[in-house]
């Protein structure tokens, strides 16, 4: 009897369910659309800004190369940059930039990689907790402070060591060394990320074979993290190439094609800063020339960026 009652109740519920009107039509969701549009706009603004910058660079550079005083070939082959006498060869600027960048990498690679290896392979939890914020702090110091540090601290030391008549007051070496210190935190933190991402079981395997910490770090962990370390180096390198304040203060203000790092020279960024800082008449050839330099800088860093992406993609080890 009770069973029957229950069964008929269940049938009733089932019938009700079947008859229920189900509305699956799309509903307008105003809030959702607004949010989507806003987020899209945010993304678009950064893209638009980049496009805008590149556009301006191209436009002004075209105007620069349209001037009868310069040709594209001359721009890349002439070894003199003297806007005053209409000599526009970018080589001295590129040369100074690369010299600063290589000296900086000479400092930052060993220092940054050493720091990264210490942090990820040797440091105790406590040492890491103290050191990491300090390194990040180093990255937060305004670059103008680094510039003064180069000029008033490093240069006198260089002059004291190598001689007043060997080392100029403004020189590439001092700027390069300090830019190296400035980009060390980039190498250190990015490399540390790469080293820490290496699975612990590889270290275990190495220790299990009787390897020391150093052997494990150098022969197993660093090679396994190589793609990340290379990418870190490239990011640091483009930062060194783009660095302006230190070189503007410490490297000098004379576009000078030299291999001697103790002589003054001017980098691309340093030159742009100096020229834009001076009173430039809008539309003059000087004014247009800095856009051409900017475009070259843009292509160099773009190239480095693409290279770093390729490296990460190609050499990344895949551990299931």
């Amino acid at each position: 009897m009770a069973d029957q009652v229950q069964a008929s109740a269940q049938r009733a519920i089932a019938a009700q369910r079947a008859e229920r009107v189900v509305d699956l039509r799309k509903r307008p969701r105003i809030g959702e659309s607004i949010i989507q549009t806003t987020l899209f706009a945010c993304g678009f603004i950064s893209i638009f800004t980049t496009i805008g910058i590149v556009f301006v660079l191209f436009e002004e550079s075209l105007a620069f190369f349209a001037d009868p005083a310069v040709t594209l070939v001359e721009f890349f082959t002439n070894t003199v940059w003297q806007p005053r006498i209409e000599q526009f060869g970018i080589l001295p600027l590129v040369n100074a930039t690369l010299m600063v960048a290589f000296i900086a990498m000479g400092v930052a690679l060993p220092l940054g990689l050493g720091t990264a290896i210490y942090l990820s392979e040797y440091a105790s939890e406590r040492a890491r907790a103290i050191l990491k914020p300090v390194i990040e702090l180093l990255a937060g110091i305004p670059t103008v402070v680094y510039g003064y540090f180069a000029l008033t601290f490093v240069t006198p030391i260089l002059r004291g060591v190598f001689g007043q008549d060997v080392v100029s007051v403004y020189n590439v070496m001092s700027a390069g060394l300090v830019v190296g210190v400035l980009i060390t935190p980039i190498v250190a933190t990015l490399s540390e990320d790469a080293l820490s991402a290496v699975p612990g079981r590889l270290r275990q395997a190495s220790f299990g074979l009787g390897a020391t910490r150093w052997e494990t770090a150098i022969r197993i962990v660093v090679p396994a993290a190589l793609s990340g370390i290379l990418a870190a180096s490239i990011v640091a390198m483009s930062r060194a190439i783009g660095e302006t304040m230190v070189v503007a203060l410490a490297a000098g203000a004379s576009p000078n094609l030299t291999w001697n790092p103790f002589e003054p020279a001017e980098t691309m960024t340093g030159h742009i800063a100096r020229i834009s800082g001076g009173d430039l008449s809008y539309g003059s050839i000087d004014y247009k020339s800095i856009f051409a330099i900017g475009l070259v800088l843009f292509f160099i860093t773009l190239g480095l960026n693409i290279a770093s992406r390729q490296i990460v993609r190609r050499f990344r080890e895949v551990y299931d």
Partner: protein
Amino acid sequence: MTSATYDTKYAIETRNMHIYYGAFRAVKDVSFGIERNKITALIGPSGCGKSTVLRSFNRMNDLIPGARTEGEVLYHGQNLYAPDVDAVQVRREIGMVFQKPNPFPKSIYDNIAYGPRINGWKGSKAEMDELVERALRGAALWDEVKDDLKKSGLALSGGQQQRLCIARALAVEPEMILMDEPCSALDPISTLKIEELMFELRQNYTIVIVTHNMQQAARASDYTAFFLMDKDDRAGQLIEYDTTSNIFQNPKDKRTEEYISGRFG
């Protein structure tokens, strides 16, 4: 023949060993000896300290911050935990194979050559080739990889990777090999291959294996040690240690019997 001292009778012997992780005692008062050229299985429920005991044999616990070992672990008459003993040296004598295959992201050849190289190996290229071949043959992997030694170790199957790891351990010519659940990530065929391999290796090496697989312990070991966690302080204890046939056919302790018959754990 049987009148030798403890030091020579056992490949390794623990005396009143306690192992701590920080303030927590994970293993208490373990005293037993591992027979030479035999396969010894460590069994017991999860968390009873099998891996901890195994790692104490080649001081891998040193790598865990806060881990500490008390008592003695004797190897060739020396306490491995004496202050003047170098853990790196210990691991060159006593090799290890891990639960999850962990080949280096290097070629098969370089995976094997790594151990000898860091151990200051000074031979010709031809001698290294020979050593690599010997290790791979020893791990029953040679025939499968001999044409492609340049291939990455990561490109092998799981079972092959594990045999590569065994070959890698063999290449440093240890006296003992410790294996922590070496087959738990492998299919049954690869597992059988590793077990056959263990029987061959037994002629030249002393093997200690941790396993959760009762059939594996029963068929692939000579001695079995059963560990269990003390209910009161959660420290792992050695409950019974005997030949594998005794442990499985007539265990003396009721808890051993309950465990192997699957009644708890």
